[in-house]
């Protein structure tokens, strides 16, 4: 939206543990269409970072190209951002993460950016288990190039162009589970109550965390006949369950009914308690997650919530056995072996 926000700040705005208000997590004004789902996800990211008391400047936000990929300019103004090229955000994020393991990496992509041109990169960043949050703003179309069907558009769904999509849809979540991603979730831009906790859990997860957010394109793909419209998604979405967080060291006061809750401890000690609904399945099991996704797909439903979580995986740095200190903090003394060693090396070349 192009409307300017008032500069006035209310003195009583709530502050988080770091003393920051929500404002401190905002970005520039959005230039997306009024009502675009992507703007709601932007707000979700702002809210999640605010609630988790993330230091804004310790975040690196990256994206590819598309309406969705523009959004990093609209959140976290105090963070460095990198709007890369179409489909290549995962590689840039990989390099960035290798250079400094201590930052939080938030990658934003679109369904075109991820499921078509960037599919190779998406697949490989997932299998590398890069420690990052990978958000797909999934509208089933190419917004920025004016509404062509994307590879996540459901077969038979039709956008404003009116021609039903004849191709099979790619389910990024199902794929990510198969690829061994440690955190896979699906949200809906129209459901903030669910989205913000999903994003928070993804941020706290160590390793690759995919959050596929269905995010209607109001301009090109919000028709009666589209399965990525607000209307359709609201009518067909089923949550895998609700959940809440118990941050590290906080006493657990709530009592959960036996069998109705599944608890998963995250890397930093936070515990997620998943309250099972009728759609319940064991989210720590890959096979269960895939079955659940397939079952819902067959019924024409969209399964949302945390779909899979595995806290036991090694991330890229663990796999490569890199030093604990960020590589970009190493000094010349720590990196250069010196002339004496060089001359020793040459002994093997004589």
């Amino acid at each position, binding site marked *: 939206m192009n409307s300017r926000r008032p500069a006035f700040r209310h003195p009583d705005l709530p502050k988080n543990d770091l003393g920051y208000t929500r404002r401190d997590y905002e970005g520039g004004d959005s230039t997306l269409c009024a009502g675009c789902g992507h703007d709601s996800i932007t707000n979700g990211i702002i809210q999640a970072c605010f609630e988790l008391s993330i*230091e*804004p*400047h*310790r975040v*690196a936000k*990256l994206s590819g190209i598309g309406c969705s990929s523009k959004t*990093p*300019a609209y959140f976290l*103004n*105090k*963070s*460095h*951002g*990198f*709007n*890369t*090229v179409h489909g*290549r955000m*995962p*590689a*840039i*994020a*990989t*390099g*960035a*993460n*290798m*250079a*400094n393991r*201590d*930052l939080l990496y938030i990658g934003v992509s679109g369904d075109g950016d991820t499921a078509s041109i960037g599919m*190779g*990169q998406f*697949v*490989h960043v997932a299998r590398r288990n890069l420690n990052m949050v990978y958000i797909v703003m999934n509208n089933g179309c190419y917004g920025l190039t004016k509404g062509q069907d994307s590879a996540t558009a459901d077969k038979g769904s039709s956008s404003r162009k009116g021609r039903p999509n004849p191709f099979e849809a790619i389910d990024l979540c199902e794929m990510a589970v198969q690829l061994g991603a440690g955190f896979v979730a699906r949200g809906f831009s129209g459901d903030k109550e669910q989205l913000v906790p999903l994003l928070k859990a993804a941020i706290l997860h160590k390793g690759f965390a995919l959050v596929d957010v269905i995010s209607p394109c109001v301009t090109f793909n919000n028709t009666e006949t589209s399965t990525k419209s607000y209307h359709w998604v609201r009518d067909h979405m089923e949550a895998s369950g609700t959940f809440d967080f118990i941050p590290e060291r906080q006493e657990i006061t709530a009592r959960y009914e036996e069998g109705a809750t599944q608890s998963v401890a995250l890397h930093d000690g936070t515990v997620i308690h998943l309250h099972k609904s009728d759609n319940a399945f064991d989210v720590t099991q890959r096979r269960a997650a895939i079955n659940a996704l397939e079952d819902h797909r067959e019924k024409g439903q969209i399964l949302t919530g945390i779909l899979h979580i595995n806290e036991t995986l090694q991330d*890229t*740095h663990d796999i*490569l*056995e*890199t*030093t*604990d*200190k960020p*590589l*970009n903090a*190493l000094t*010349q003394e*720590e*990196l*250069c*072996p*010196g*002339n004496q*060693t*060089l*001359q020793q*090396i*040459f002994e093997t*070349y*004589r």
Partner: protein
Amino acid sequence: MKKLTRVNDFVIRFANVNGSGSASANNLFAKAVFRLGIPVSPKNIFPSNIQGLPTWYEVRVSEQGYLGRRGGYDFIVAINGQTLEKDYDDLLPGGYFLYDSTRALSDHFKRRDITPIGIPLTDICNREIKNPKLRPLLKNILYVGAIAFLLDMDFSVLTDSITKQFSKKPKLAAPNIRCLELGFNYASEHFKDVCKLSVKRSNKLSTHILMDGNSATALGAVYAGATVAGWYPITPSTSVIESFDTFTRQYRLDETGKRKAAIIQAEDELSALGIAVGAAWNGVRSFTATSGPGISLMNELLGLAYFTEIPVVLVNVQRAGPSTGMPTRTQQSDTLACAYASHGDTKHVMLFPSNPTECFEMAADSFDLAEILQTPVILMSDLDLGMNDHVCLPMVWDDSRQYNRGKVLDREQLETLTKDWGRYLDTDGDGICHRTYPGTHPEKGAFFTRGSSHDEHAVYTEDNDAYKRCMERLTRKWQTARTLVPKPRIKTDDGTAAGGLILYGTTAHAAYEAVEMLGKKGIALDTMRLRGFPFQDEVCDFIDRYGKVFVIEQNRDGQMRTLLMNELCLVPDNLISITHIDGTPIDARFISQSIETELSKTQPPKGGAL
């Protein structure tokens, strides 16, 4: 017949089947010559295949220190039946033809101007070596032993090399040494005084090393402090990263044994360069290494790095194109593709090493250059330089040297900023602006990097003037680059030269030798070896000085000549292209003959309407 008779001055060519273990035997021979103190230059001419196709290994032995290819073969070791006839025909008159006489040569082989040396290699192996699995490998060692006798070599150098090579598995040394002896003895019994080529210990080499360019490049990256490498395997660049991996596993570990380097084998070259770009953006020195097909894939990201001003080093070990071309043969055919890689107005800094010493130095310098200029720097190596061993002096790392990380604002500097800061705000006119790394300061220095057009404060803009200002500043930066890239090496005599000669990269050895050859015939040429792009004034001045300037290169279209004309706005009349394109390294005889032919042509009338 007059037999070729020379000491420490000949070319020997081994013709083998690839995958038969011949390379290590042939290398054993080359290394022995090196250890005898004689300048030597081995060149492996191999197929893109794992087993069964023809492969050649050429060794030039040159007391005088000529390390390029000379052209022609004086001694051929013909072990490959598939190429026997061709190898036979390729031998120079007066030369020696060593073959496996287990099978007699057919009637075709009736040259009277050469000396055949038949040794029943297979027979001897079958008789003497019990384990049939070892026979093919040891057959190669057998002919090395025979050559040692024929060339009158100090035998102990070979046995010492074997002992050294198998120091960890001494059991394997014994059969190898026995085969050397078998070959040596057979030759001494049957071919006494037959071969008039010989190898005599010399003192031409002192502290020299025998090293491939890719290892030297990798060492340069280690010494320059590179920590992140993204890559995708491709001949002939693969060993750059593999060496970087080996060196960092040894010399870059922290106290707990963890690695101070991250090497990622990516899914393709787009990702490989993307990883390097992301890492450089986040404040480390990073690089990738590839060859032609990878360069084509990297184009979009090179443009991104150019326009967003991210310092990244790209090592291009060139091979013969186009497309898959000849993946295991050498060429200098990516000059233009790299100079202007990517869409839109882009230009890239290039460095042209011509030996392992320069691979090391230029690799190390390229990281400084990239960070000073905040732009990609491409190191233009090639297969000949990268994968063959070259005699060179050991490089020296100046321990007092400090990495020049360019204009980067740290937390202190951000804290005390008094003036307006913009990521793309040029404050001193050199076209280079101050950058910041992510995570440096809670309130200051964050900016948004984007490949779309941006103003001085890195804010998206479609304002025509802002876009123009940015592009013009990048041109200013290019002018700054001219002052920083390595200067050409110019050799001029007393002003009597008949013309000038421009060369770069691995053409150097053969070209300098050709110039000497021509000099002896009374044709004096001044030379200029290009070492960097953009070109400096010296380059233009050199070309202006002569009526004829030969541009020697290893590609079809004279790409460097085109680049010179384009960048220096030259009228091309006096720039004569001499190109060598068959995929083998260029040789001195080819160059001198081509120049003689060109000079014998009548000079076309100069001038006309401009």
